[in-house]
Every structure is written in structure tokens, then in C-alpha cells.
């Protein structure tokens, strides 16, 4: 079973306790009514669909209940790191990619 590190519980816990919640770091536009239909469509539906390291939101729903962010390799399904909601995406440059 996949173990996911919850940054709030500070523990690696079974995948069954977590729920996936889409791509991370997507800011809601400040003034949606000023957007064109295409821009609004892009905000609502268009996602990056990365092959490789992807920043995504997870929720520890059957645990502490918190949303947090994770960097996961979509090829290997390996979690590179997890970090609390509101923190910037960690800079992985200079580090070895997860094996």
C-alpha cells in the first residue's frame, strides 16, 4: 500500500485515509467578471496534465481532515514531498529525482 506523509500529522499514513483533490497552486481570479469566456474556461477546466513531477492537492479526510499539497511523480506514482497548504512549491532543482 502507498504511504503518504501528512505534513500536519507528521507521519506516513496509508493511502486509504486520503482523498485526491486536483491540481495545486491554481489561484481563483480576483475579478471573475472581468475575464473573457476563454480565460474563465481555462481557470475552471484546463489543467497542466504533467508527465513527471506534478503539484497536487490531497486531503487527509479520514485523519486530521486537512488539505495539503504534494509533489508526485505521475510516471512512477512516487510522492517526492508533501507540504502544508499555503506554502510555496518546493524547489527541487539541484536535488536528485526520486527513484
Amino acid at each position: 500500500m502507498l504511504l503518504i506523509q501528512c505534513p500536519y500529522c507528521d507521519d506516513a499514513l496509508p493511502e486509504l485515509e486520503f482523498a485526491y483533490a486536483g491540481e495545486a497552486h491554481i489561484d481563483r481570479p480576483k475579478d471573475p467578471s472581468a475575464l473573457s469566456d476563454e480565460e474563465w474556461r481555462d481557470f475552471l477546466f484546463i489543467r497542466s496534465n504533467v508527465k513527471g513531477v506534478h503539484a497536487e492537492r490531497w486531503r487527509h479526510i479520514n485523519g486530521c481532515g486537512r488539505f495539503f499539497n504534494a509533489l508526485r511523480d505521475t510516471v512512477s506514482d512516487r510522492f517526492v514531498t508533501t507540504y502544508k497548504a499555503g506554502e510555496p512549491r518546493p524547489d527541487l532543482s539541484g536535488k536528485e529525482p526520486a527513484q
Partner: protein
Amino acid sequence: MNAPVTSFDAVSVAVLSPVARFNLRIAPADLAVASKVFGLTLPTKIGAGVRNGDRAAYCIGPDEWLLHAAEADQTAIMSSFDAARADTPHSITVLSDREIIIGITGPAAIDLLSTCCPLDLSCMAVGGAKRTVFDYAQIVLIRDGDDAFRLEVWRSFFPHVHGLLEIGVRELAVGL
């Protein structure tokens, strides 16, 4: 609820008598106020628990605590928290009737729980509590000793969870 006690030498499953149960949400900075009102120093680490007599407090989220007390104290505890609310904003909800508590004791308690719970229970601290899943039903699991656990489950999930535990006990009894 007088469900039958199921047991064999290595593990027994029993429905325990109800307790007053509360869910407390409060900013961690204001925890000292809640500790004073409840009369117990609330733990700050998720998964940790404190117990004194019939009162117990378990930290299950960054700003969330599960409180236990004697049934007779429920009204008094709610009044004390209501009085504290004027100065210290918080939310406290009575959950006493929402959940049923099951005691699982015996040397095979971990084996029995592991049939449906994905946590590595051998690593769980004695005296602590965790919200987790039991065959997709959300539960709170409290560890009272090396081989003594209490499992709190919502009333509506109780027949499912208790049924699985009964099957597990029988399977362990016949050596499966």
C-alpha cells in the same frame, strides 16, 4: 445497545457503555483556556491523548480535539464552555449519541483490527487516538494498552463494523 459480547481466549469484542463525547475546535493558541475549562491539559500533538479518571482528551487534528467525560457531566461541561465563549471563540459539539464505542482486548487485538484497518497499529502510541478507516467506515481508534483498543464508530456504520469484527473473531478462533 446490548449487543452480545463475542470472545475467545485471544481476543474479545464488547460494546462499552456510552460516555459524554465532544468535538472541540479551537485555535491552538487558545488551548490553555480550553484546558482550564475542561480540567485537563489538552495534548498538542496529533494522535496524542491525556486521561484522568473519566475525563480524556485526544488531539485528532491541528485544531481539533475529542473529549470524553462521564455522561452525568455533559450539561455542566457545555455550560462551562458556553461561559468561556465570550472571550475565547471556539466550537464545541456534543457527539455522545452519534457514536457507539466498541472495546477490543486480548493478545490478538491487533490481528483482529488489522483485518480491516490499514494503519500499522504496532506503531501506535499507548494512550493515543487516531481517526482512521475501518473497511471504508471512518472510525476513531483509541489505544488503552498494548493489547487493548477502543473503537468509536458512527451509529449507522455500527452493524457493518461490528459484524466484521464478529466474523474476524470467529476466524481467529478457528485459526484462519
